[in-house]
């Protein structure tokens, strides 16, 4: 399949994402310049980590207004899978494509370390093939990763199943010791109501090869690949259709829906 990796000025994990998607996973990858206005021909888009536009003003604030974000918004609207990693997550929040906001880490410093997260929702293209409760080991590297949403918004996204990852210990327990940055309710990643736009602070591309200590991050990209391919194949193969859409084969009569559309 064909991934797009967006490059903002001072994105700095763009090459890492291209490496994993192309060299490690053998996918086609297109580098998308921040001034691009079209994402035609792409199956999924990754907003990589870094310090887009220097993160001056506020992390992600300037990048959220870059020309390419209009195209990303349109791509997301029709159900295209979008993954924001670290700074990419911050940009998606600033762009209003994901709910909530990012505060400075509770420790008030940049923190680069390895953490564990628990998969809280499998209703997204990036977690579809994972198990709920599955524990993944991935690195973090950020100064502003303290996820915040006010009480009412938090209840809404919790109830809607929009919390995708939570910081936990190696055994999957969500504890305050396992929270590296002070995020409310240990939230490490969220999705939009439709589930096709996902943002997370940990770096799956840094945990996609054994030699770097973990392959857990690769599961997110593999899930997206499986999901996209399944959607293409969906009319023909019902079990893949189920994986792709979350629908049981008996419900196939309905028209195909975007990723993450809920069965309610």
């Amino acid at each position, binding site marked *: 399949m064909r991934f797009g990796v967006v490059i903002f*000025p*001072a994105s*700095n*994990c763009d*090459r*890492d994402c291209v*490496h*994993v998607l192309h*060299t490690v996973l053998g996918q086609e990858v297109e580098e998308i310049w921040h001034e691009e206005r079209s994402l035609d021909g792409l199956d999924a888009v990754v907003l990589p*980590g*870094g*310090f887009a*536009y*220097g*993160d*001056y003003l506020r992390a992600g604030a300037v990048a959220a207004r870059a020309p390419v974000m209009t195209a990303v918004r349109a791509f997301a609207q029709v159900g295209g899978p979008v993954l924001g990693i670290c700074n990419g997550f911050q940009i998606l929040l600033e762009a209003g494509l994901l709910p909530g906001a990012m505060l400075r880490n509770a420790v008030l*410093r*940049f*923190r*680069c*370390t390895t953490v564990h997260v628990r998969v809280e929702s499998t209703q997204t293209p990036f977690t579809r093939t994972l198990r709920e409760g599955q524990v993944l080991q991935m*690195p973090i*590297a950020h*100064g502003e990763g303290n996820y915040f949403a006010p009480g009412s918004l938090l209840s809404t996204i919790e109830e809607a199943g929009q919390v995708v990852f939570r910081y936990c210990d190696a055994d999957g327990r969500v504890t305050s010791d396992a929270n590296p940055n002070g995020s409310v309710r240990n939230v490490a990643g969220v999705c939009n109501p439709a589930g096709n736009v996902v943002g997370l602070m940990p*770096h799956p*591309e*840094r945990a996609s*090869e054994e*030699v*770097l200590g973990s392959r857990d991050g690769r599961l997110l990209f593999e899930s997206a690949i499986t999901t996209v391919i399944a959607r293409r194949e969906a009319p023909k193969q019902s079990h893949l259709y189920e994986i792709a859409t979350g629908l049981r084969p008996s419900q196939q009569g309905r028209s195909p829906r975007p990723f993450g559309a809920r069965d309610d």
Partner: protein
Amino acid sequence: MTTATLAPESVGLTRDEYEEIRRRLGRDPSQLELQMFGVMWSEHCGYKHSKVTLQLLPAESPRLLQGPGENAGVLDIGGGWAVAFKMESHNHPSAVDPFNGAATGVGGIIRDVLSMGARPIALVDSLRFGPLDDPTSRRQAAGIIAGIAAYGNCVGIPTVAGELVAHPGYRGTPLVNVACVGLLRHGDVARSRAAGPGNAVMLVGARTGRDGIGGAAFASEELDTGSEREDRASVQIGDPFAGKLLIEATLDALRAGGVIAVQDLGAAGLTCATSEMAARGGMGMRLELERVPVREEGMRPDEILLSESQERMLLVVAPGATERVAETYRRWGLRAAVIGDVVAGPSLTVHFGGAPLMSLPPYALAEAPVYRPSAREPATLRARWTMPDLPMADPAKALRTLLATPAVAHKRAVYEQYDHMVQVRTVVAPGAGDAAVLRLPELSPHGLALVADGDGRLTDLDPYRGARRAVAEAAANLACVGATPLGLTDCLNFGNPEHPEVFWTFRQAVTGIADACRAMRIPVVGGNVSFYNESPDGPVLPTPVITMVGVLEDVSRTCGAGFREAEDIIVLISAADPDLAASSYASAVHGIDAGRPADVDLDAHQRTLAVVREAVMCGWLSSAHDCSDGGAAVAVAESAILGTIGADVTLPAAARTDAALFGEAPSRFILSLPEHRVSDLQTLAAVHGVPVAVIGSTRGDRLRIAVNGQRESASTIDLPLDELASAYESLAEIL
């Protein structure tokens, strides 16, 4: 041209130097020229007092693609690939403005490596502060670490290795030495020699402002107590965002072709870059200063010529390629302006507003006079070689004290503030092994290992031996991860070289590095000298810092420093007897910096390293760690804490029990390995004539260290691992 009305002293020049300028020009310099000579002939730019001595350092290597004299050294690593690396100090600016001083130090060294045409892939930082219970030192430490983090994290270059030392000998004069390593193809090596009359001279990157004017001259003065307030205008402000754009745009521009030479703008700004590029190429340059993009209206020519605004580079570009180069920089949001051209004949001519402002031979500026300062062994040196009779400390208490010493303690509190994983190369992260290991997917399964080492305390007590020990220690650290030394870059931090005792110490240290490098066949491919590190308390501890780069055959076989399995056998490899002279134990536990450090037997050392390196690359070892500060007891404790597995060992006896536990010597290692590999290791060691002793095994969650032949109760350390770990994590409370 107006003749100088400034006194030479006001720009940091002596009367003799002024006469030399007159001799070279055949006339009096103008005021502007005098200012330019002032910065170019400062110690920082001109290496006046160090040049002769630095010629002692060997650069020979069959892998050498570029030695000293360019912006960074370049060495072949096979497969058509090469690494460029260089270390530089930013001590004076960091003392005055810790955050910005350190940040711009990072930016500057990155541009040095970039100007060789290399993509920067790693940073190494070596930091020295006054005691961390001193509020000023602590504030400087926090600011410097935050500055390095702010710059390195944003530009996306991982900081993977380094040092942190606290000692009263650095009070008021922190040392900030940063190295950068870059990767490039052989054919892409860029150089800084101006060539081809008619080629365009382009200034690219950030605009030129009024910051940092006279920074180089300031870096060549001793700091006094008012420095922090008065000198702030001499400190440049970094913009890592622009720095990142400059990296990408410059690599794009070099790839596209038409760029003939590259030089970064650092100390002395345009003055230095233009005169050095022209002098290196034996060419001249004609500059039109009004074409320099400036940050504010009304900047005077001297301000434009001397500004040290960051994130700028000077390119020599073929005339037909200037528009393409400009477009490349524009795409990255940066400016690229043609500010002049290369001319035949040795003259650097500067025009402003259409009128000629000055014209002089570039080499007159770029080649500062060379001095052979007088040298005298410090009067008190030999007296300090007498070691007082140390009382025996409680071993358990001494171990905890040593583990909590900043030089030994876990640096997690520091390196967690640095992105050490970006670029997905980091296989052995900081803190996990004796050196950082980066994989090279370009040359898989090969990798690079990086380490920084220096010991001001040892160098102070014996500069020749201290410097040799630093080289030996760096190579030992590389061996622990399975790497063979490729080359090194050094940062030489000393006081005022006009003091004969300081200069003697400097020359002894350089001789020590040179001898060690010749014996071990390690080329010195570049480096930096920082003199005048003096505060009202006197000169800084003389501190040569070595950043050594090594290559690994297979990164998947590399080895960490922490124990990996319970019931492994623990082995001590030792080619020298531990000694308390000049030891960390004497310093940290007894408060005594005395004794003559033992010299390193480089032949025995080389053989020891071969054993460790081969054992790692054969995949026999679970862990490898060299015994340095705090000796064998500290090394065993660190391996246990890092691996969260206890140990029970009995160390060989020495002259005293505390010497057996905490005595130091080069060429000693603590290894752990499965029992069935022990005979393999013993055979390998026998081949190289290196003594190996089985000293115990890994087990449980306590650390028990006894000394052979000593009564149990008096000599034994028996502590729960948690207790040691909390001492080892002491920096978390401080930084």
